[in-house]
């Protein structure tokens, strides 16, 4: 019996950090390494979930269904998970991944829009998959509002509801109150998905465990959107030192991170100014690389783009607004200089 169940999202959230260019060989190697280390659940999808391959979010180098086939082949004990955002992916995608042998469907909505997940959660349950509701940008609303949305997901049949800190903007108390309130009032499981923009991902995850969280997400080396996720190998090592059981071999987790994942993104783990700004302004982490490209294309500052997006209360999925804001900032700059 472990104290929480770790889901490794290197091959989903980490996909943002390498612009959705995972190859089947990389997937095989990462899945084999994590599985051997004892990681119980491994998520594989486009960074924006099934169907995310697009102009708006970046096209996949290899179709996610092909990557999932490689993952199915490479795993022995681990469960395989996918992410799906209603509005981007469709039910047909769930049928397809269920046929491939995927075990867990994670259905994500903005934290105030849980009712758009009903069709997908119910279908995943009907197909016999374990189902997780994923409330993105959970920092944007008050804990009691979040509980209301979590209850909706539970009522559709979710086996677990996650507090998702997509902007890496939550501090320790923000996590404690939200996870605590959900644990107290839901009969299903509760999870936390943390980002490291304020360098709090590991601490926040441990606070969540302290509040009784049943599931926690990590990514090898922290590979993920924005300044990255909670690094799996660090969370495992810290948990062991605190006497919290994960069932994962820390040395093997470190080896996979260092030897298989680190070469893909050697600087992962560095929180630079733009990464920090995401957490500070509360902006969706996967906007980062798109904002850097737009800043270069339109000759404006990445930080100005991110701060403007924060002011406009843009939500996950609105990557198109990065171009909108960049074009507007460029127009204003031109006006100011004439």
């Amino acid at each position: 019996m472990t104290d929480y169940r770790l889901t490794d999202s290197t091959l989903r959230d980490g996909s943002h950090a390498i612009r959705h260019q995972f190859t089947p060989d990389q997937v095989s190697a990462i899945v084999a390494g994590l599985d051997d280390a004892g990681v119980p659940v491994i998520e594989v999808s486009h960074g924006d979930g099934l169907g995310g391959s697009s102009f708006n979010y970046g096209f996949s180098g290899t179709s996610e269904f092909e990557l999932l086939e490689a993952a199915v082949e490479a795993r022995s004990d681990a469960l395989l998970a996918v992410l799906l955002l209603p509005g981007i992916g469709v039910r047909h995608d769930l049928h397809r991944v269920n046929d491939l042998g995927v075990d867990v469907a994670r259905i994500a909505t903005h934290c105030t829009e849980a009712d758009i997940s009903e069709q997908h959660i119910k279908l995943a349950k009907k197909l016999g998959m374990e189902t997780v509701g994923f409330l993105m940008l959970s920092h944007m609303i008050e804990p009691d509002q979040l509980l209301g949305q979590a209850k909706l997901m539970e009522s559709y049949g979710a086996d677990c509801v996650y507090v998702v800190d997509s902007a890496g903007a939550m501090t320790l108390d923000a996590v404690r109150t939200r996870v605590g309130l959900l644990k107290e009032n839901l009969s299903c499981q509760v999870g936390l998905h943390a980002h490291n923009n304020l360098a709090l991902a590991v601490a926040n995850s441990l606070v969540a465990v302290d509040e009784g969280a049943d599931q926690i997400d990590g990514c090898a080396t922290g590979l993920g959107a924005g300044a990255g996720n909670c690094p799996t190998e660090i969370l495992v090592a810290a948990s062991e030192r605190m006497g919290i059981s994960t069932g994962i071999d820390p040395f093997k987790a470190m080896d996979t991170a260092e030897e298989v994942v680190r070469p893909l993104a050697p600087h992962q783990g560095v929180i630079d100014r733009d990464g920090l700004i995401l957490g500070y302004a509360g902006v969706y982490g996967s906007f980062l690389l798109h904002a850097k490209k737009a800043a270069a294309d339109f000759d404006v500052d990445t930080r100005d783009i991110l701060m403007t997006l924060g002011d406009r209360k843009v939500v996950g999925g609105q990557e198109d607004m990065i171009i909108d804001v960049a074009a507007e900032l460029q127009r204003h700059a031109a006006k100011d200089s004439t």
Partner: protein
Amino acid sequence: MRCAIVGSGNIGTDLMFKLLRSDSLQLGAVVGIDPGSEGLRRASDLGVATTADGVDWLLDRAAEFDLVYEATSAHVHRENAPRYEEAGLKAVDLTPAKVGPAVVPSVNQLQHLDAPNVNLITCGGQATTPIVAAVAAVTPVPYAEIVSTVASRSAGPGTRQNIDEFTITTGSSLVDVGGAGRGKAIIVLNPAEPPILMRNTVFCALTKEADRQQIEESIGSMVEEVSSYVPGYRLKNPPIFDETPVDTPHGRYEGRVISLLEVEGAGDFLPAYAGNLDIMTAAAVRVGEAIASVEVPA
């Protein structure tokens, strides 16, 4: 031409206000199923005949009408559509049921004037298909993708429980009506307060040879055409050309043109932020008037 609205919710009520201003369409009745409906009360206050007895009431009086607007839900329309046709009533469908051909006033409505049933796709389809068609009119569009973002408050329970119907129906209209080789639609709900105006972003993949100036002119005149019936429809920026080639699982796209649109509602009944609903009811009136212009009233 004598018409009726079936459905007395937000869409039906907004449509009522627009139809009452039309010269060629005479609104004869608003049909609901709930006697306590706010929409029926408003219709009755404006002197429009109302009933809470549903479509049976209308079918009993089918000879008094020519055209019916369906503003209920997709599954209700699938049941009603054959009954309208049998009764000799033409139907304009504002649900994503897609029983009849998809029509967009500025693109293809003249092709389907004879159809017994026409479908208005979705709000996102009405807002974005014209831009895809404008680009496809001057250069091949191997792939088109749209992102529609609407205020959470303007997305009712029907949209929420059937969000896949939005993405699938809209995506296929980019191909069937817009003329793209492949299509993909994304919808995002934004809960910000005050509510945001409806936003649509249209990405069209381009070939190397595409004439940028011709594309920009074609988009410009299409925006003008759509804004003739949806006054709040506008480009936020001139079209943006991105020449970075992109490799995808479906091959390489040499570049793309990005159109950033905003739709402000006319505020007939629904608030100005609900441009997504306004564009549907405005298109419905436009399509009805086109049908009326070729039909001799019975």
